């Protein structure tokens, strides 16, 4: 974990209210797929915890795909290329890279980001059958498809209003198209991940929750173990990635 200034190499609109920010700093060398950084937006008390979407360790560059949801992320969107931003990271545990015959990656809206690096690493680990399912509210919200196609991975898209791809949500798409896999990784809205947990016995979820410190000190972001009510996890420290069936959220 480091707290350092990162250089902004890119900060562009890639879909409705959705931006790609590319940062360069030394914390990149320790990054794992599924980890996050906590970004300081000047003028705000709390930092913005954002998942790292992909990284290039040689160039010390890492990419954040983020959605403008409030005043803080709006200020992030206004940050200029060439400026620097204060970031703490890497934070959280990241995705375990497991081997399986077939793997399904399921992203909902802003949850698509962290799946990009994961797909790359699963492919490098030798998994031949990786498929991606992404659900968005409408056509203008779609992003990330080219990141997966660059890896030679096919993406199935759903939109809630049917303006693009399958008409419905990501889980309905999986059912309708009869997509099966040995295991799944998912990141997105709570209800979507809960439905994914019902469909797949094996795999991982990545939680998005309001945080304060982002480094395990404040107990702001805890979740309980599903089996043992006296056991809890800090999403920022022992998470954000948990086994399917592990936590109550």
């Amino acid at each position, binding site marked *: 974990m480091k*707290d350092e200034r990162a250089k902004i190499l890119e900060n562009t609109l890639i879909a409705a209210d959705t931006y790609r920010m590319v940062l360069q700093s030394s914390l990149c060398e320790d990054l794992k797929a599924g980890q996050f950084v906590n970004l300081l937006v000047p003028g705000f008390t709390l930092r913005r915890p954002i998942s790292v979407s992909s990284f290039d360790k040689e160039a010390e560059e890492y990419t954040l795909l983020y959605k403008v949801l409030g005043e803080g992320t709006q200020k992030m969107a206004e940050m200029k290329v060439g400026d620097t931003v204060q970031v703490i990271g890497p934070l959280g545990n990241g995705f375990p890279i497991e081997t399986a015959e077939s793997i399904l990656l399921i992203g909902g809206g802003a949850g698509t980001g962290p799946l990009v690096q994961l797909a790359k690493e699963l492919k490098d680990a030798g998994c031949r059958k990786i498929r991606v399912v992404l659900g968005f509210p409408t056509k203008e919200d779609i992003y990330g498809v080219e990141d997966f196609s660059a890896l030679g991975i096919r993406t199935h898209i759903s939109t809630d209003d049917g303006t693009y791809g399958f008409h419905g949500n990501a889980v309905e798409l999986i059912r309708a198209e009869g997509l099966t896999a040995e295991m799944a990784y998912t990141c997105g809205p709570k209800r979507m991940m809960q439905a994914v947990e019902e469909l797949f016995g094996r795999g991982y979820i990545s939680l998005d929750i*309001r945080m*304060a410190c982002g480094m395990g*000190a*404040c107990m*702001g972001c*805890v*979740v309980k173990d599903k089996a043992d009510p006296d056991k*809890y996890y800090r999403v920022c*420290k022992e998470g954000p990635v948990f086994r399917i069936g592990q936590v109550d959220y």
Partner: protein
Amino acid sequence: MDERLRVSLPGLEMKNPVMPASGCFGFGREFAELYDLSLLGGVVMKAATASPKFGNPTPRVAETPGGMLNAIGLQNPGVDAIIEREVPWLRQFDTCIIANVAGSAQEDYVETAEKIGRAEGVDAIELNISCPNVKEGGIAFGTDPKVAASLTAAVKEVSKVPVYVKLSPNVTDIVQIAKAVEAAGADGISMINTLMGMRLDLKTARPIIANKTGGLSGAAIKPVAVRMIYQVYEQVKIPIIGMGGITKAEDVLELMYAGASAVAVGTANFTDPYACPKIIEALPGVMDKYRVDTLSGIVGKAHR
């Protein structure tokens, strides 16, 4: 070490007056990955209760202009685990250790204070009678002068170390509570805890925090802290540990002018995990700028 920063309070001989506030620093382990905790004047540990406590449902935090709301609900592993695991770990650092003690009944407070006051390395107790986020206890002990005094006396009777009573700003007259705990034997006062607040989600029209209300902290509450420390300093003789919205070295001077003998930094640790060492490092320069010779010499300067 800069002798000009040294302060002395009952049980606490501090190399500087700056310590992280209870609840904003855990037990220091995460911050120790970033800097040497021996730089700090002291560490106020996360609240200890007689039994382990999970706390409130999530969301537990929300940002506000110049601050944040929290309703953690005193999550902690319980006093026995803290004595066994956290206090010995913290002892490796050259810094004062203050144990924050909370409870839902007088017996809980007394049991916890007695145990943790005997733990090797604990220099003082901060008696938390002001947590706004638990249904039982907490603030209920801090809003009635008689109840606050009776609890203070009971804890003083069993505590091996000095007791600082942490007061709530969510009262009509904080001076009455301060005088009552002083009369009951408190060695010092710690103030202020968070101000009770609420935020609503514009999409759902419901409170963002699951507990509905939360404690407001951060830069936004500093003027309230300054005002209350000023008022209490005028009426009590025991020293005050001041907290509420400190983000920079200038704020330390302001709270000490108002009447604080030492200070705690809370929410600023979330904005910048290096907040405490940065404030300590900046203090000599800021003291020079305002012609302050020693920090111990400016306590209550606003009243002179």
